Each structure stands twice: as structure tokens, then as C-alpha cells.
């Protein structure tokens, strides 16, 4: 631990030396410590519970660290946990989620970046009308569009398949991503675009040779946003896929909330943490870019 700061400011202004252990410092850091512990607690409880055996869980309390660390719950959660119908664990759901997430992320980003590019640099008549509808669409509760999409997917023969869900994620990711890309492309210097036009580059040439290479940060933000969003989705998964194609969140819920058999809390928590691992890893690795992604949702169109 480093020592507390030598200088602290009462409000963010001019320097005014303070004692390290002033009442204010103790109060401020004390409060922050309690808050931080509170927010961290559920993650701690998840990890600790998933490493205990059932006898220990029944005797001890949920906060105590495991006396005997066991990884069996993790193995069972992955390959044997039961959903009431089958006992294949989370692995199927995990691979389904992978198969859903990767194409959805790629497809939605390609489409949205092209939309954003067309809106920023090649605006055609009426483009803004569609864009406004798209942005308002982001506010429509998904429940309103659930059934019409069921019909559309059924007509296309995609209902219940992974492909159908990929399409749904592409559609619902479009508003926020289009906004993100449009705003970013608009902020690039226009001279670049004009110079490329003078040199004879067309729509696709400028997109691939100038826009994409210049926009790698925003593509990263979009990837983070989409991977966590799609991985965490539950509603679309439960509506548009079937038991064989359920994404991980749905199988997790089925495992933990299945009413059959004895509740094995350690396995449940192991399953929960495994499901949370992908977005958590992305979050902790990406840091500020994650914040930028969610802040994009707050940027007005």
C-alpha cells in the first residue's frame, strides 16, 4: 500500500496543504473503502462459494474463505450440471454463445460502420430520416418487436437457429453502433476525405483505405460493446433459439433455477462465474475503452 496523499483538496481547486490523517481524509477514504468492498463482495462470494464442497457450505457462512479448495464444482458446472432435461453442463451453452457472438459482432460492425460512413460522408436525400427512425428504434421496448421478428425468421426458415439469433443481434445492435460510427467518422478531418476524392477514390476505396485504418480505436470500442452485450443477452436467446441452440445465459438460468434435484450451490456459483468470465475479462482488460463504449450510449445523436 502506498501512503495516503500528502495534499488533498476540498473540492477540485487550488493547492492547500493538509495533514494526511485529517478528519476529512479518514472520512473520505473510509467511505470509499466500504463502498468498494460492498461492490466487490458479490464477486468474492461467487468465487469463494464455487471453491467449497457442499458440506462446508451447509456448515459455514457464505463469506468465509474455503477451508479445502476444490475445483470439482467448476468441472461439474462445465460438463455435468443438469437443466432438468439434460445433464450436459454449461459447455454446450458456452460454445453456442461463441458461435452466436463471433458472427454477430463481425456482421453488426461491418453493417453499422458502413451505415455510419454513408451517413457521415455520403449523405443522400432521406438518409437522416432513416437514421432518426433507427435511433428512436433503440428506445422501443424489445417486447414490441419480439413477435413480428418471430414471423420474419420463420418465413426465412431461421427461427430457432443460431443464424436467426445472429440476425436479431445485428438488427438490435445497429442503432447504437451506427451512432457510434457516424459520430466518429464525422469527427475525422474532412480534408482527408476531399483529398481522397480528388485523387479519384470512390465510396469503397475511401472506406477501406482511409476510414477503416484511421478508426481502429472506435472499432475496438464497438467490439467491446458488442461482445459484452451479445454475450450477456438473455431475452433474444430464450425467444429465438431452442434447447439445442440456447446461449450460455439461458442454460445458466436453466441450470440454477431448475427445480429438480438437490440444490448444489457450489456448482451453481461456479456456473454463474464461468458465464460472467468472458465479459469480466473484457472489462478488466479493456479498461477505459469499455467506459467509452457505454458513454457512447449517452452521446446525443
Amino acid at each position, binding site marked *: 500500500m502506498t501512503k495516503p496523499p500528502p495534499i488533498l483538496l476540498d473540492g477540485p481547486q487550488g493547492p492547500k496543504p493538509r495533514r494526511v490523517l485529517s478528519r476529512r481524509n479518514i472520512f473520505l477514504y473510509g467511505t470509499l473503502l466500504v*463502498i468498494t468492498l460492498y461492490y466487490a463482495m458479490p464477486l468474492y462470494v461467487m468465487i469463494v462459494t464455487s471453491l467449497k464442497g457442499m458440506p462446508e457450505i451447509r456448515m459455514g457462512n457464505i463469506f468465509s474463505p474455503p477451508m479445502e479448495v476444490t475445483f470439482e464444482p467448476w468441472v461439474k458446472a462445465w460438463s455435468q450440471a443438469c437443466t432438468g432435461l439434460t445433464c450436459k453442463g454449461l459447455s454446450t451453452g458456452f460454445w453456442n454463445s461463441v458461435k452466436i457472438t463471433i458472427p454477430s459482432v463481425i456482421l453488426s460492425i461491418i453493417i453499422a460502420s458502413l451505415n455510419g460512413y*454513408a451517413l457521415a460522408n455520403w449523405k443522400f436525400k432521406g*438518409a437522416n430520416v432513416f437514421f432518426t427512425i433507427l435511433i428512436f428504434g433503440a428506445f422501443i421496448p424489445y*417486447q414490441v418487436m419480439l413477435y413480428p421478428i418471430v414471423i420474419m425468421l420463420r418465413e426465412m426458415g431461421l427461427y430457432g437457429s443460431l443464424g436467426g439469433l445472429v440476425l436479431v443481434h445485428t438488427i438490435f445492435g445497429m442503432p447504437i453502433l451506427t451512432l457510434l460510427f457516424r459520430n466518429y467518422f464525422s469527427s475525422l478531418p474532412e480534408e482527408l476525405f476531399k483529398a481522397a476524392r480528388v485523387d479519384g477514390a470512390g465510396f469503397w476505396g475511401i472506406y477501406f483505405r482511409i476510414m477503416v485504418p484511421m478508426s481502429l480505436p472506435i472499432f475496438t470500442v464497438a467490439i467491446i460493446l458488442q461482445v459484452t452485450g451479445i454475450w450477456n443477452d438473455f431475452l433474444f436467446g430464450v425467444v429465438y433459439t431452442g434447447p439445442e441452440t440456447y446461449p450460455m445465459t439461458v442454460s445458466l438460468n436453466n441450470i440454477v433455477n431448475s427445480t429438480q434435484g438437490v440444490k448444489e450451490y457450489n456448482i451453481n456459483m461456479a456456473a454463474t462465474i464461468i458465464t460472467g468470465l468472458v465479459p469480466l475479462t473484457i472489462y478488466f482488460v479493456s479498461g477505459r475503452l469499455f467506459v467509452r463504449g457505454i458513454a457512447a450510449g449517452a452521446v446525443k445523436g
Partner: protein
Amino acid sequence: MSSARPSRLFRNKSAKIAAIPMIVTALFVFVGGTVWTIVYSFTKSGLLPRLKWVGLDQYERLWSTRKWLVSIENLAIYGFCTLVLVFVIGFILAALIDQKIRFENTIRTVILYPYALSFVVTGLVWQWILNPEFGVQKIVRSWGWESFQFDPLYTADIAIYGVLIAGLWQGSGLVMVLMLAGLRGIDQDVWKAARIDGIPAWKTYLFIVIPMMRPVFITTLVLVVTGIVKIYDLIVAQTGGGPGIATEVPAKYVYDSMFRANNLGQGFAASTMMLLTVALIVIPWAILEFGGSRNRD
């Protein structure tokens, strides 16, 4: 932009081709889907959608169904509490973090990580923490307070507050981040001026800084409210709507009517009501934000 082409439709052709997915989504899914659902909410659709008009029957049935009334009540309680608390907590956290503290990044990271988790994970963790046999209640009792009662998820009257705890844990980090961005956007001279005038810090926040952060508050409000109306996964994972129907919410009512009870008409009517709720908030906001500034693009 480019040289003259024979037809206006084909001018700027590549851009139009690239925008086809956007146009299709906007027109067919967002507008088409919404209109479709609203239209079919006036029909007698059961297992399959049927264009047999029944007027407002579905809505009358909806508003006389106890499960729907409970759903609305829960959404109101959950929504009101979330709205108030998430702003209070989010703002206080942001103000504390804005004091030029050490470990700012660590603290921010810890407070925001729940937001990266899915509602399903959130619901299941809190289901476990609030489990009366093993969780908080048992621990306090083991300290010697034998009669301690803290059993929200199994007590119908307060079950929705159990969900609220989980929802706040998950969502307050987002508000904190947005508020922090707002605070950082305030000109430092404002603070200096307030300082010189001898205004205490809390008054400066309340009467100067917060009014200056109005745009941030409004966008956050819209984000939070639309999030509240959509609440579904958290309920399914944490309580499954129970005990009994104590924690039912409109989004779950829609899902259950459409895909469990084969009662599409009820689902359409209920989802139209949800749309109406959102519209009542989003449309005034949109008029306020964008109405007067046509010249901006």
C-alpha cells in the same frame, strides 16, 4: 457530389447500397414491427396471430388481470426507487471520486464491473447472497441476533426490494461514470468563484454544479428509464416472478403471454402499453433536446 448521373435514384449509389440494411431495419423491423404489434393488439389472436377485430377487448382484459396489475405496481415501485436511488448513489459516488483521490482507477473499476455482468449473473448472485438459509440472514443470526429477519426473496411484500438491491448494484456504476464525466466537464473557475464567495461545498453542488449538469442528467435519465421498462432477465433469474406473482413485471407478462400461455393478443396489448410508457418519456425529451435545433446537421 460526383459528376451528373442520368437518374437521381442512382446518384451516390454505393452509399445507398451500403445503407440498405439500415433502411430495411428502420422501416421493416422498427416501424413495421411496431405497427404490426399495435394493430394485432386489437385482434383476437391466441395461439396464432389472426386478424379478427375485437376492439379494446384485449386491453380491458389486460387491465382486469391481477398479474398485470401486480406487474405494473412492481414496475412503478422498482422504477421509482431505482430512479431516485441510482441518481443519489451515482452522484455521491462521482462526487467522492472527483475529490482528486488516490486509487481512483481501482475504485472506479470495482464500482463499474457489475455493469459488465449480465442480469442473469447478477440475479443469481444476489439470489444466493439473500438466501435466508445461507446468506446475510444466517450470518447476522450466527452473530447472536437470533430473531433477525432479512428474507426479501421469500417474503411476497418486500420481494421486489430484493430485486432492487441487485439492480442498484448492477446499474449504479453506469450512472457514476456518466456523472463523473459531467462533473469533470464543469469549469474549474466555477468552483473557485464559489470558494471565494464562501459557499460551502454541498451548496455549490446542489445549487450550482447540478443545475449546470442538466444535459448529463437528462440523458442519464432517459437511459435509466428505458432500462427500467425493459427489466426482464433480472427478475427471471433472481425470483422467476415469485414468490407467487409477487415480482412479476410487464416485460415478463409479455413473454409469458406470448410464449407460455399462447395468448398472443394479451402479449401484444401488454407490449403496446410498454411502448406507450416509453413514448411518454422519450417524446418530450426528444422535443426538448432536438426540437429547437434543426440547423445542427
